[in-house]
């Protein structure tokens, strides 16, 4: 199946194919996703003549190329967790229960700095807020869950990668699969890769010489992701730059505040700076 170019793996940002956003018209509650009138612009209808297994396989194959981007992050997560002093159980438990690469790397980074629990939790959750957007956007394109178990499974597999791959598929004119199965299939390679290579990174950390610390790789990942977010922004990049500059500068200035409150203050000010700076720049889309 021609999936078109594989979407770039980006651990943090929503990928809205063809400029779609979650502010689109919401299909009426209970409307069938087979009803052409309920489809969003450009969206391909669900295929009932294709079975779930074929759709799951197609999603799995479409999501597999993103492993190239996931494996290095998972290895670094595992090795950094070990270097921080986390046990194998703690490291694996985090991967299984949180299953969000950027939040886990932030967790490890802040844990190493002995940041207070409330600040650590709030920072990790702040970066995971994007999952709300993914969920809102994805829910418009899937049948409502049939029960709590299905709702839990489909939400657990919601990641940057499964969102990007599924959306890319749903808007591909040649798409001919069941959407839910395709979406679940697209999330499986990420899950398998993240769990297995996170574990491998932890075990490999034992053989890394002490003269080659891996801890610096975590802020380097953050740096690479930040550049990627700013560079790939579909709108004016300046508000994002201002947001980053304000947050970074304030985080340095307020580093000494008790309870690491400077970090939270810097994040809030950075968000507000980005938000308000939007009004100073005429909206324009980057080609």
């Amino acid at each position, binding site marked *: 199946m021609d999936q078109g170019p594989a979407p770039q793996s980006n651990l943090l940002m929503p990928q809205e194919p063809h400029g779609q956003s979650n502010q689109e018209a919401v299909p009426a509650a209970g409307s069938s996703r087979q009803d052409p009138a309920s489809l969003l612009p450009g969206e391909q209808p669900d295929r009932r003549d294709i079975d779930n297994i074929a759709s799951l396989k197609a999603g799995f194959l479409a999501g597999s190329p993103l492993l190239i981007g996931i494996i290095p992050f998972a290895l670094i997560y595992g090795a950094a967790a070990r270097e921080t002093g986390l046990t194998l159980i703690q490291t694996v438990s985090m991967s299984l229960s949180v299953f969000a690469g950027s939040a886990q790397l932030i967790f490890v980074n802040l844990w190493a700095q002995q940041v207070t629990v409330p600040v650590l939790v709030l920072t990790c959750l702040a*970066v995971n807020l994007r999952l709300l957007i993914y969920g809102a956007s994805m829910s418009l394109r899937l049948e409502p869950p049939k029960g709590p178990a299905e709702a839990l499974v489909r939400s657990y597999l919601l990641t940057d990668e499964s969102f990007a791959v599924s959306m890319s598929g749903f808007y591909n004119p040649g798409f001919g699969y069941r959407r839910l199965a395709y979406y679940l299939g697209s999330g499986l390679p990420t899950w398998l890769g993240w769990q297995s290579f996170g574990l491998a990174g932890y075990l490999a950390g034992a053989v890394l010489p002490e003269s080659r610390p891996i801890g610096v790789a975590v802020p380097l990942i953050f740096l690479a992701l930040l550049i990627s977010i700013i560079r790939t922004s579909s709108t004016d990049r300046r508000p994002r730059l201002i947001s980053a500059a304000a947050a970074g500068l304030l985080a340095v200035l307020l580093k000494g505040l008790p309870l690491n409150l400077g970090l939270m203050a810097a994040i809030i000010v950075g968000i507000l700076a980005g938000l308000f700076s939007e009004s100073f720049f005429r909206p324009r889309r980057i080609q």
Partner: protein
Amino acid sequence: MSHSYWTALLLVALGSQLFRLTFLGRRLTPALPGPVRRALDHVPTAVLAALLVPEFISANPDWAAVAAAVAAIVAALVTRKDFLAIVAGLIVYWLLI
């Protein structure tokens, strides 16, 4: 120490799953208000910058880390590959420490 680890992990895990479930597990999907969505767009940028800048800029900077950051920035801009940026930064850091 261990108790606080599990407490933090439990809260992050529950919060993350709640974010995923909020819309994806419901029958009705309200659209997010525009200002909220726009604010959410800036969260990753602000969080990453607030986390990483103090790692490289401080009163007593680790110059090897600063050089690694510069190498990573250059590699990211030239190659446009996150992974190569990290590798470049890590190599420079290991060479300098």
